[in-house]
């Protein structure tokens, strides 16, 4: 473990600007690159959601300048119902792949996983560089879909076949834009597979002396488990996307059955299965939910113990629960397909694991809340976002009780209830994990501290705003408001319009509040208060090195680890904590006695 492989020893600091900041093999630069890409993607994705919300509340609103983006999709700046579907597809794809996968996992994971285990870099630095650049290519391919002739794709981020597979005959938006979507996601999968392999090898092989698996911080555990999930999930989505591309451009029929009639023309495809796409997609798609949320759970745990000044009630139980979640995440994909036409018997088979997966999630939540008891909680912007995460995770989680049951899903499937559920539990909760991580680790990443006051203001507006936006989604869903509809006029949905207006206003305000975050990020990067080595009095290895860390992290030395990761709430020479690499003898805070 402590004898570094030769390849890592030869990892010398880069000399040129290009090798240092652009095509860098340094995991810290790559982590920041992923973070930056996610930042660009999240603001584009949020702008798209603004346009969607404006259209839903005020369908005839003229948005100056929008016609320049798409003259057919927004003639005179008024969004057409068709263009709404494109905005929605691009919003979902950007957020799920390029934000929720990139930032908490690839971004923070790349930066901090090697440091937290005491390594100089990732196991395969060049693969690591490649994984980012491949992801950037995927992003550019997806963005180019905005500017192709017949418009961006509109089949949703799930791109169900045969709509996504038969090509331009199914209507505008099903032409080149849809092909670009499939190619982009296939490329994205390659980047994630490279990244996942790298994370797994690094965690297993490059831990420093004394860093046993159980001594790894929970954030590292979460990234490790996520990379195991990702390796299996993206390995299925990649071939699925390639088959979709073949169906579209090479005339194969993997997902298209016989005798489809579009515009009075019988299609030439024959013998494929639309359900096959759904199975392949959701075999990836459900684990993807955990790819987004597990790193956030790890980051939140890591920050929470630091703010509570005590370890969690049980380190082991949280790890075992995270592993169970990862394992179970592969047994539940069919709950997205209860009404798809798959066998109703399999619906029950998928329902029970879905209900059972709430048990490990509940255990972790109870341990977070239970650990607060008797702690010495410090309120910072980071800890506020971590606590807000727990609240949102619970709110989004309990609506899962409904959707896990096929009988209730008959009514709620494809309504705003589902949209509210997943936005809270995997969208906003995961974003809160990212925010918590940003406020917590910014001093380490950039050597400067973010403004706490602005951070707290950002928290309040975002926390209250998120509830104002997404709680009413559940009510709309209960009233039968279907999703993926662009206009609610002249039908049974019209009475719900005032709620949509409320949500749109809340979304505009909450979105605007993110500019505070952006300002804080940019301002603090250049003008922030210089950060010390360990501003939060934390225990893990990233806080034992300078801020920002030197290129090889530990200055050519290999740290030695003596303690469990979260030795808070003890008496030591440094105060109420002892760092993992401090040789000081202390009375170790072990797991709760009832568990040992």
């Amino acid at each position, binding site marked *: 473990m402590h004898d570094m492989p030769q390849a890592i020893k030869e990892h010398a600091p880069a000399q040129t600007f290009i090798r240092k900041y652009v095509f860098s093999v340094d995991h810290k630069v790559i982590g920041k690159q992923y973070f930056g890409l996610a930042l660009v993607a999240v603001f584009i994705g949020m702008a798209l959601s603004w346009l969607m919300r404006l259209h839903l509340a005020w369908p005839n609103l003229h948005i100056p300048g929008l016609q320049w983006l798409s003259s057919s999709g927004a003639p005179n700046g008024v969004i057409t119902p068709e263009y709404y579907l494109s905005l929605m597809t691009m919003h979902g794809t950007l957020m799920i792949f390029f934000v929720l996968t990139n930032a908490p996992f690839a971004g923070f994971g790349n930066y901090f996983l090697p440091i937290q285990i005491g390594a100089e870099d990732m196991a395969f630095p060049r693969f690591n560089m490649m994984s980012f650049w491949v992801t950037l290519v995927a992003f550019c391919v997806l963005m180019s879909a905005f500017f192709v002739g017949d418009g961006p794709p509109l089949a949703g981020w799930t791109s169900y076949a045969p709509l996504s597979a038969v090509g331009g005959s199914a209507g505008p938006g099903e032409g080149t834009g849809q092909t670009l979507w499939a190619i982009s996601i296939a490329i994205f999968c390659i980047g994630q597979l490279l990244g996942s392999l790298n994370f797994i090898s690094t965690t297993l092989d490059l831990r420093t002396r004394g860093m046993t698996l159980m001594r790894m911080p929970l954030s590292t555990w979460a990234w490790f488990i996520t990379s195991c999930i990702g390796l299996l999930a993206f390995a299925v989505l990649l071939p699925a996307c390639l088959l979709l591309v073949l169906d579209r451009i090479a005339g194969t029929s993997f997902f298209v059955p016989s005798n489809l009639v579009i515009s*009075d023309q019988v299609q030439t495809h024959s013998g494929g299965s639309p359900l096959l796409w759904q199975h392949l997609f959701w075999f990836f798609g459900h684990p993807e939910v955990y790819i987004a949320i597990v790193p956030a759970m790890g980051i939140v745990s890591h920050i929470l113990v630091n703010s509570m000044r005590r370890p969690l*009630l049980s380190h082991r*139980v949280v790890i075992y629960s995270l592993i169970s979640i990862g394992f179970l995440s592969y047994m539940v994909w069919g709950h997205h397909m209860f009404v798809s036409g798959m066998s109703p018997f399999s619906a029950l088979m998928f329902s029970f694991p879905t209900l059972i997966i709430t048990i490990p999630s*509940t255990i972790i939540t109870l341990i977070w809340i239970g650990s607060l008891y*008797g702690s010495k909680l410090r309120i910072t912007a980071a800890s506020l976002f971590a606590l807000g995460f727990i609240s949102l995770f619970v709110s989004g989680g309990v609506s899962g009780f409904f959707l896990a049951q096929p*009988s209730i899903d008959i009514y709620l499937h494809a309504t705003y209830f589902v949209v509210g559920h997943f936005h809270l539990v995997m969208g906003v909760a995961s974003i809160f994990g990212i925010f918590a991580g940003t406020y917590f680790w910014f001093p380490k990443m950039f050597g400067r501290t973010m403004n706490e006051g602005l951070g707290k203001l950002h928290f309040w507006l975002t926390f209250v705003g998120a509830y104002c936006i997404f709680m009413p989604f559940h009510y709309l869903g209960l009233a039968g408001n279907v999703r993926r509809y662009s206009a609610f006029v002249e039908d049974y949905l019209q009475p719900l319009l005032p709620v949509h207006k409320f949500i749109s206003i809340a979304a505009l305000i909450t979105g605007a509040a993110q500019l505070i975050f952006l300002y804080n990020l940019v301002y603090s990067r250049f003008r922030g208060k210089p950060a010390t080595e360990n501003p939060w009095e934390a225990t893990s290895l990233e806080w034992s090195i300078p801020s920002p860390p030197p290129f090889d992290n530990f200055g050519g030395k290999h740290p030695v680890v003596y303690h469990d990761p979260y030795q808070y709430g003890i008496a030591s020479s440094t105060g109420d904590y002892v760092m993992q690499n401090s040789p000081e003898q202390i009375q170790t805070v072990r797991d709760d006695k009832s568990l040992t």
Partner: protein
Amino acid sequence: MAKLFAVTLVIIALGSAAPILMHKWTPPQDISAHGPTIDDQMSHTMVEAGISFLAAQIILAVFIWKFSGRREGARISSFPGGAMGLVIAAFLLVGTEVLALGVMGARAWAAVYFTPPAPNALLVQAQAGQFAFYFRYPGPDGKLGPLHPEMISEATQNLFGLDVDHDADSKDDIVTAELGVPVNREIHLLMHAKDVGHSFYVPELRIQQDFLPGLDLSLHFTATKLGRHEIVCTQLCGLGHYNMKAYLNVMSAEDFEGWLKQQATQQ
């Protein structure tokens, strides 16, 4: 700030629960025979999810209120019962709760999907295509004629691709744009997708089922109240998805017969 956060949490929790407790947001009135089972299941789940939601948010708020900003020398203590107590609580309370819901829910699901349609159920075929639903009734012979995809034509209004010149069973088939059904009689709906994926959703009927291209599905239901309700497509099917709808018209048996005859004369 911690105390303000705790208060905000409680306000959000109570505020979120209030519209539900006041029964402001409920599904529209049920008009189906199987609907009450689904509605009951939804109510049970609402109670259990609601209690879990409120309990978790309020306890979180109380702990944040109590244990933030304590003085320097304050002692760290542990939750009574420790992690093991919480693990047991998660298994016993949440585990049994969700499994009970799962078992009850499975029965509700079985009531809809595991029972065959009654022998005297009225056969209707629904066809979904971009961006309209059409319905076909078998006529006096009780048989639906075969479909010929190559004969489908909007121009000649041969929407299903029927060959009335050669197929005897197709001759008396009645094609409509509205799903007219007699009240209190079971309907056996055969679901055929013409082009891409679509879905059949009538909130009042507590039914949502996708049309699966390449595989004709069937479902059955009994409408128990007269009235006219929207059928909406809930599976994204392309540009005009938002505009794809039809009407379910539940009529008395006599009105239905009259309506069907009238539709037949318009063929």
